[in-house]
C-alpha cells in the first residue's frame, strides 16, 4: 500500500477538515492532490503535528481535525499518545503512516522496520481506546470511515511502502501557510457565529 493512494482516497473528505501534516513526502503528496486553505504543512519540528492537532481539536470543538503523521515523526514525540489519551478530543483523527523509514532524510530504517516497534501497541498502551492497525487499502478506507462515524479520538496506523513523490516544492511560503490557515479557521468561526 502506498501513502499517496491512501491520501487520494481520503482527499475528498478533507475538504472541510482541519488537516495538519508532517514534513517531506506526506506534505508534498497532499499538496500535489491540490492545496486547500485548511491544510497546514509542518515542514520541520518533527513530532509536533499531533500536538498542533490536539491544540486545534481542544480549542475548536465544532471542527474535525485530521493529523497525517509518520513513524519517524511520532517516534520523536511518543508522549503525545499519552496526552491525547488524557484529553481524548472527540474531533481528532490521528493517522500514522508507518513506512518503517526516515524516507525524507535518506531512507534509513526507523525503529518500526521489521516489526521491532509497534506504534499501534504504543498508542493502545498510552490509553487510546480506538486504535486501528491496517496494511491494505480496503482496511485503511474502512478504518477512516469508522473513525469519521465514531466521533471519538481515533488513531489509525497504516503500514505503507517507503516511497515518496518524485519532486518536492510548493508555491507557498511557510509563514504564509500559517497565516492563511489561521485566517480560514477564524473566518469560519466568524461565519458560524453570525449564523447562530
Amino acid at each position, binding site marked *: 500500500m502506498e501513502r499517496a493512494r491512501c491520501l487520494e482516497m481520503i482527499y475528498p473528505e478533507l475538504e472541510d477538515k482541519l488537516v495538519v501534516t508532517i514534513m517531506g513526502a506526506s506534505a508534498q503528496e497532499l499538496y500535489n492532490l491540490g492545496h486547500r486553505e485548511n491544510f497546514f504543512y509542518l515542514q520541520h519540528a518533527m513530532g509536533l503535528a499531533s500536538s*498542533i492537532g490536539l491544540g486545534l481539536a481542544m*480549542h475548536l470543538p465544532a471542527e474535525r481535525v485530521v493529523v497525517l503523521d509518520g513513524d519517524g515523526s511520532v517516534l520523536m*514525540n511518543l508522549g503525545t499518545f499519552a*496526552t491525547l489519551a488524557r*484529553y481524548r478530543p472527540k474531533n481528532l483523527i490521528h493517522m500514522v503512516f508507518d513506512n518503517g523509514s526516515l524516507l525524507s532524510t535518506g531512507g534509513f530504517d526507523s525503529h518500526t522496520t521489521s516489526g521491532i516497534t509497534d506504534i499501534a501497541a504504543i498508542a493502545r498502551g498510552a490509553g487510546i481506546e480506538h486504535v486501528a492497525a491496517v496494511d491494505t487499502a480496503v482496511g485503511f478506507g474502512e478504518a477512516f470511515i469508522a473513525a469519521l462515524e465514531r466521533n471519538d479520538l481515533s488513531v489509525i496506523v497504516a503500514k505503507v511502502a517507503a516511497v515518496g513523490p518524485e519532486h518536492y516544492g510548493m508555491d507557498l511560503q511557510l509563514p504564509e501557510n500559517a497565516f492563511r490557515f489561521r485566517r480560514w*479557521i477564524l473566518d469560519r468561526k466568524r461565519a458560524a457565529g453570525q449564523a447562530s
Partner: protein
Amino acid sequence: MIDAVIRFPTFLMTVSYDNSKIIFDGIKAAGIKSISALPETWLGLLLQRAESDPEIQLVQVAKEEEAIGIAAGAYFAGTPHLLLMQNHGFFGAINGIVSLAQLYHVPLCMLIALRGHWGEPYPWHTRGGIVTEAVLRALGIPFEYAREPNQVAKQIREAWTFSQSSLSPVALLLTRDLMED
C-alpha cells in the same frame, strides 16, 4: 563510604501563595483563556488555580515541546493561550520553538520558572539557571525578569501584547524573589 556522600543543605522552601494568586489573576486579566503546562514546584499553586477555574482550559503535557504544538493549535484557533514551564522544560522545547513558532511566525507567551539562579540551594538546577538568559538571547527571544508582585500583572499583559504584535516567542522569567516566601 558513607563519608563520601555529599550532604545537600535542606531548605524548607515555600512557594508564595499570595504571589501565585497575583500571577494567576494577572494571567486572567490579560485575557488568557487557555494554558498549557508541565507541573513544576514553583508553578504548582498556579496550576491548581488553573485546574479549578472554569474559565481556563488547562492542558498538561508529558514534555514541554508538546506545548509548543498545542500553543500553535490554540493560536490558529484564535484562543488566547499562555505556556507555563520551568527553564529546563524550555530547553527541551527549543526545537519546537525554533522550527515551529519562529519559522512560521506563531506567537508564544511563555512564563518560565527560573530555577537554578540567585539563592538556589539545589545543585541540580544550577547549570540550567546559569545558561537560561544566554540561551534566550541566542534564540532572539525577548525576555524580562518578574521580581515584584506589584509589577507582574502588567508584565504578563505586556508580554502577551508583545508576543501578538511581534508574532514571536516572548518569555517572562519568574524569579525566586517572586515565587518563594
